[in-house]
């Protein structure tokens, strides 16, 4: 009987709580369609690693498969970089290339990253953990994993749960912040959209230029920016359609499967169930709020200097958050809700893809500014 039921005696109430949390992530993924590609594997993985004497993780001399995967792809930051190739291949930078001034809102919407670094230090986290928590505000999973692993943060599991959960909650987080910072008159500003031709040469040179410029100023961002832009170059070169297709589909999906379930190895009850996790969840939410506020306020400041007929709708500043394409859809819907003839999708999409670039630069800045 001991051989059959002995393991049950090792069951800890904390493990059961983690089952509930894992189940909640699975529920959110399936029922609410919240980032299912990550939350479902993370939820299931959280259950896997919180079974007594789980064979999925290392027990004494027996190396668990999740730890093998973790060392193979997360601890050395490989998986997020490979995923970035797929993400880069998926992104159409066309709306941004038509109006490159929109990049500035991407920059402004990284305010939450750095503001939360400060808040986290005020709450007692060391600078490495504070930077890892702040990068939740990059609203970009691979960047968050890369930075938190670079700094060897103990809180990777909580950081990933926060990052992906809040990315999925952008439609709930952003609108109240935007409405608090703008007037109805500002929200109904119409922006004229003129489709401009972006040459193939520009589309091809863009990823190369971004990599070189970012790499010269922020050398530690080269891996992140470079892999993202490599994926984009595969898409835009026009002669590697099969590789682009593989990057967007096979590579991205394969890495996503491994990433989600492997990150869960950091969700063991002892590591996850502590007051720091709650603080990280709270700080992560603040990062998204400050990101949104930073972008909107930047747009309002720019409007001070714009003539009446060229004013920007400040809501597009909120799209500088890297949650693509969710944020641009949210702002487009908000604009239509205020004025049925106000179509902002293309401008919002331009800012949103700019935010993707800015978030990677922000992550690179953290790596550059804080010694390992």
């Amino acid at each position, binding site marked *: 009987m001991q051989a059959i039921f002995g393991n049950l005696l090792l069951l800890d109430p904390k493990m059961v709580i983690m089952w509930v949390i894992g189940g909640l992530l699975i529920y959110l993924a399936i029922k609410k369609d919240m980032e299912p590609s990550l939350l479902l594997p993370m939820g299931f993985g959280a259950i896997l690693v919180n079974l007594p004497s789980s064979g999925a993780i290392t027990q004494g001399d027996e190396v668990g498969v999740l730890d093998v995967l973790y060392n193979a792809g997360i601890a050395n930051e490989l998986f997020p970089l490979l995923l970035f190739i797929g993400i880069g291949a998926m992104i159409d930078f066309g709306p*941004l*290339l038509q109006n*490159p*001034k929109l*990049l*500035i809102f*991407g*920059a*402004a919407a*990284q*305010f939450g*990253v*750095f*503001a939360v*670094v*400060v808040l*986290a*230090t*005020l709450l007692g986290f*060391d*600078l490495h953990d*504070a*930077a890892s928590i702040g990068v939740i505000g990059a609203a970009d999973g691979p960047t968050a994993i890369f930075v938190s692993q670079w700094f060897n943060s103990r809180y990777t599991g909580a950081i990933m749960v926060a990052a992906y959960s809040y990315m999925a909650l952008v439609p709930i987080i952003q609108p109240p912040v935007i409405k608090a910072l703008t007037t109805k008159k500002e929200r109904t500003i119409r922006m004229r959209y003129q489709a*401009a*031709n*972006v*040459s193939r*040469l*520009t589309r091809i*040179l*863009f990823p190369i*230029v*971004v990599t070189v*410029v*970012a790499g010269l*100023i*922020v050398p530690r961002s080269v891996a992140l920016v470079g892999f993202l832009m490599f994926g984009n170059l595969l898409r835009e070169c026009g002669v590697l359609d099969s590789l682009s297709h593989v990057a967007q589909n096979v590579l991205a999906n394969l890495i996503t499967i491994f990433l989600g379930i492997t990150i869960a190895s950091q969700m063991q009850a002892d590591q996850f169930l502590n007051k720091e996790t709650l603080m990280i969840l709270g700080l992560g939410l603040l990062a998204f709020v400050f990101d949104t506020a930073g972008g909107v306020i930047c747009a309002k400041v720019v409007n001070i200097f714009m003539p009446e007929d060229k004013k920007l709708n400040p809501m597009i500043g909120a799209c500088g958050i890297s949650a693509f394409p969710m944020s641009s859809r949210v702002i487009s819907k908000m604009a239509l809700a205020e004025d049925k003839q106000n179509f902002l999708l293309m401008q919002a999409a331009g800012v949103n893809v*700019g935010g993707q*670039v*800015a978030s990677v*630069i*922000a992550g690179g*800045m*953290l790596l*550059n*500014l*804080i010694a390992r």
Partner: protein
Amino acid sequence: MSSLVLQSLAVMGQGMLGVFVVMALLALCITLLNRFGNPTKKNAKG
């Protein structure tokens, strides 16, 4: 204020400045790419 918080404030200042500088440079580069890299516009001028 602890030295750690002051350090984080410095990171914030330099970090935001760095992001803005890079994005402004990229905006300039893209503007130049659009100006000199569009063969349709070149033909129209010719």
